[in-house]
């Protein structure tokens, strides 16, 4: 039994204080543990995203990780970015999915939840060819390194890029090994060893083997003499034997081939319990199909709109769980990726059209552009309707993006006058810059009606022309939706920019009233 007495000496005070230290320490540790468990919630949103936004996008695109306990490790799988480094934002970025910025925040959310993460990418970073695709590939490769990817494969469009660009983007940086790998593709030769054929990573106490292959059927479409390719099956046999010695708990095969070809290949290599395929539908399926070998087949959809997360729960009744993750606005934006995108846009700006090897092509009609203001001199009502529509500030929307995109040919082509929309190159006499061609800013009349410089010059009297010639020039620019042929022609014009990629909600009958400038309709 202890009695209270005022501390008579410092020694006795020290003794009493030290008697409480251990209990206080233990209590503090317990509190920390409990609070840690409470704070490390499900990875359901990016940092800083509010409850309201998370709830809105959960309602739109589904709940994530429902019923999941923290896995021993989680495999985050992405791929088929198809050049969509960032959603274009034409219909409002919050209405679109994908982009490296949200992807980074998704991966960070997994880590913040205390889930050990290994990230792999199937490949297919770009879809197009040319200087912009080369610059974009380098930027995306830099971004994937920053996100600490452990394995990245190659898609056919990636391998069509010039070797010097591929090697610069893919090669090891300093002492950091390259995350790119492939069992049957070698840049500058399979024996150049610029990329490994496989890798084994240790995460959450699990050993995970990763390799990639390019399907045989796709190899003949890659005409790049500096890229050496071997048959997928024989290359995979060698690699599979080596990986089997790696004492892996799980083995991942990133297979750039059609789903049918992937299934056929996977059947011969049942050691890969997770097989990622290219192709397939726009979105990943809700559930991962199980192949006859017991392997799980992963489809990723297109344009990098989704990631697929596979959680490992060894010893439980469901040792693998999967979740398709829409990369929507609930993930917010990652500052480092926004900076990367800014750097990419600045490169495009500094290269300019000449540096991007974009030269003007002749318009199919051979005519030149006048600018929408020239049309307003006679077509007052039509111009007024245009001025009140989004078309009239199309370029401004690019300037106001963060980062701004008014130097990006893939954006400019639909936001100014005089570009081939689907080819991302200017026509002769089309928009070049606000300095040189301000009168061709925004999506103007001539993008639908055709170049009108000759017509405007005749109507003004700048050029003399016969009545026949004058009428011919007028007739060439007429677009009427009164006939089925005319309507189809108008619809096709709209679809040049309002395509499925950038305007998935487009319906001519719904959109037309906002821009209906039929003379006499006022």
């Amino acid at each position, binding site marked *: 039994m*202890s*009695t*209270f007495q005022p501390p008579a000496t410092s020694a006795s005070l020290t003794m009493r204080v030290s008697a409480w230290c251990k*209990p*206080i320490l*233990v*209590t503090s540790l*317990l*509190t920390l543990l409990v*609070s840690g468990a*409470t704070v490390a919630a*499900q990875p*359901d949103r990016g940092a800083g995203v509010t*409850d309201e936004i*998370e*709830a809105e996008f959960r309602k739109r*695109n*589904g*709940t*994530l*990780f*429902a019923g999941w306990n923290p896995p021993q490790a989680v495999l985050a799988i992405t791929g088929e970015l198809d050049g969509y480094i960032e959603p274009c934002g034409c219909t409002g970025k919050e209405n679109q999915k994908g982009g490296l910025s949200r992807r980074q925040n998704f991966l960070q959310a997994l880590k913040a939840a205390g889930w050990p993460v290994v990230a792999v990418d199937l490949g297919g970073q770009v879809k*197009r*060819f*040319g200087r912009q695709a080369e610059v974009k590939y380098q930027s995306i490769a830099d971004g994937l390194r920053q996100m600490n990817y452990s394995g990245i494969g190659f898609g*056919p469009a990636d391998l*069509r*890029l*010039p*070797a*010097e*660009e591929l*090697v*610069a983007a893919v*090669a*090891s*940086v300093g002492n950091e090994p390259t995350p790119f790998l492939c069992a049957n593709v*070698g840049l*500058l*030769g399979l024996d*150049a060893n610029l990329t490994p054929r496989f890798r084994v990573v240790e995460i959450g106490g699990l050993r995970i083997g990763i390799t990639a292959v390019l399907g045989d059927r796709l190899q003949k*479409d890659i*005409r*790049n*003499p*500096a*890229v*050496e390719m071997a048959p997928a099956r024989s290359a995979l046999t060698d690699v599979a034997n080596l990986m089997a010695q790696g004492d892996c708990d799980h083995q991942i095969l990133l297979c750039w081939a059609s789903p049918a070809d992937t299934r056929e290949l996977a059947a011969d290599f049942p050691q890969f319990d997770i097989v990622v395929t290219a*192709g397939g*539908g*726009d*979105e*990943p399926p*809700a559930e991962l199909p199980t192949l006859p070998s017991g392997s799980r087949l992963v489809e990723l959809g297109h344009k990098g709109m989704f990631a697929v997360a596979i959680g490992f729960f060894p010893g439980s009744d469901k040792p693998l769980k999967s979740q398709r993750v829409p990369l929507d606005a609930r993930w917010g934006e990652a500052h480092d990726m926004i900076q990367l995108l800014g750097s990419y846009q600045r490169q495009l700006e500094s290269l300019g059209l000449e540096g991007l*090897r974009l*030269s003007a*092509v002749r318009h199919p009609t051979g005519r030149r552009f006048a600018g929408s203001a020239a049309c307003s001199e006679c077509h007052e009502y039509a111009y007024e309707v245009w001025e009140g529509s989004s078309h009239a500030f199309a370029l401004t929307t690019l300037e106001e993006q963060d980062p701004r995109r008014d130097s990006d040919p893939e954006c400019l082509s639909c936001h100014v006058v005089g570009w081939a929309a689907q080819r991302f190159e200017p026509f002769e006499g089309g928009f070049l810059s606000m300095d040189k061609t301000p009168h061709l800013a925004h999506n103007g009349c001539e993008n639908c009606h055709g170049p009108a410089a000759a017509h405007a010059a005749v109507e003004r009297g700048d050029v003399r022309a016969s009545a026949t010639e004058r009428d011919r020039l007028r007739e060439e620019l007429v677009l009427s939706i009164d006939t089925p042929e005319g309507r189809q022609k108008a619809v096709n014009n709209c679809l040049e920019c309002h*395509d*499925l990629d950038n305007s*998935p909600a487009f319906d001519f009958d719904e959109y037309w009233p906002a821009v209906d400038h039929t003379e006499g309709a006022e």
Partner: protein
Amino acid sequence: MPFRLPNPWLVAAVAALIGSLTGGGTALLRARSTPLRSGSLRADSSDQSGPRAQVDVPETHFNFGRVSVGGTGSHSFFLRNTGMAPLVLTKGATSCTCTVSDFDGGGTGDGSSQTVPPGGQTSVRIEWKGKGSGGAFRQRATIFTNDPARPEIAFEIEGDVIPSWKAVPAMIGLSGLSPGESTAVTFNLYTYAKDPPELKTIRVSSAELAEKISVTAEPLSTEALAAEPAATGGFLVRLNLATGLPLGKLRTDVEASFGFADEEVVATIPLQGVVTGDLMLVGPAWDRRSKAVRLGTVSRQKGMVTKLFLTVKGDARDQVKPVLKEVIPAGLHVEIDEPASIGGGGVVRIGLTLSISADSPPANNLCTSAASGGRIVLETGHPDSPELSIPVCVAIAE
């Protein structure tokens, strides 16, 4: 009565218990007050006790097979209420506006919801439109319910959207073209109409490039057709790019005009490439912008090893056997590998191993205003470029 200090361990245990109860109670209160926060989405988050609705859905996935671009289709999914309380269904989002959902009978109010009595059944019809340029199609539509065990149901439809034609690959991209060598390329143009196509014309759209690029087409073989599901005809297109292509960008289209019984089609397939000189340097340390090897400042105690590759194409590629003529700074060691053939023999690769070691004397060749750059000079054996001088920017420090 003297005050007695309690046992510290007892105090600690009570404090931990109170803290845990407080924290857990707070979390529970938040979860109840913001049910969305916990991940469950309910059409009605009221009292869970008593009779409940229970939804039974025999089918949530449908494969519609094939639809043409612009074509439409629909399928109804059935939902039954096997519970004891009304089942409230609310229309959720569709993943694409090419997919819409409507309740049987149009739903109630604005059509966004429907109530199914116990034992009753309803259906939701999903419609889709084939958009884009064809290919595999998969989309979903979500319905929310007040069944606490199944608050949301995702219906998924998939199939194939069939275009009228498709080129494989969709665009021809050619890297590493040589002005001194011709290049042969083929691609397949598939069609999907009932009737086989009749080729009218095929040409390279650029008049200038048409002089250097010939194009022919022949009907696809049975084997080639079998490789493309749903294709009913098509052409094997052969391109031959002659020698003498100008250096730089190559950009044109292949235009094929063909007809069916009731339709004429003009297919345009982009053709792009880059024509470069026969000798090219590639490697991690090779800076493409300044056209120099940039090694930075290297400590000779730590050392450095890196690889640079010289690739050679063109008809003189087998004559190139580089010999080292000069290296500045002297401390930069260069070893030249034996030439190796890659790309089916179309390209020769020669590796150059660059290293700096402890015996490398200090040097400053950092390519600045104060320090001129170094160089590696090779005698190549190439008839048009017999000597190659490779700028090097490096400083060798202690």
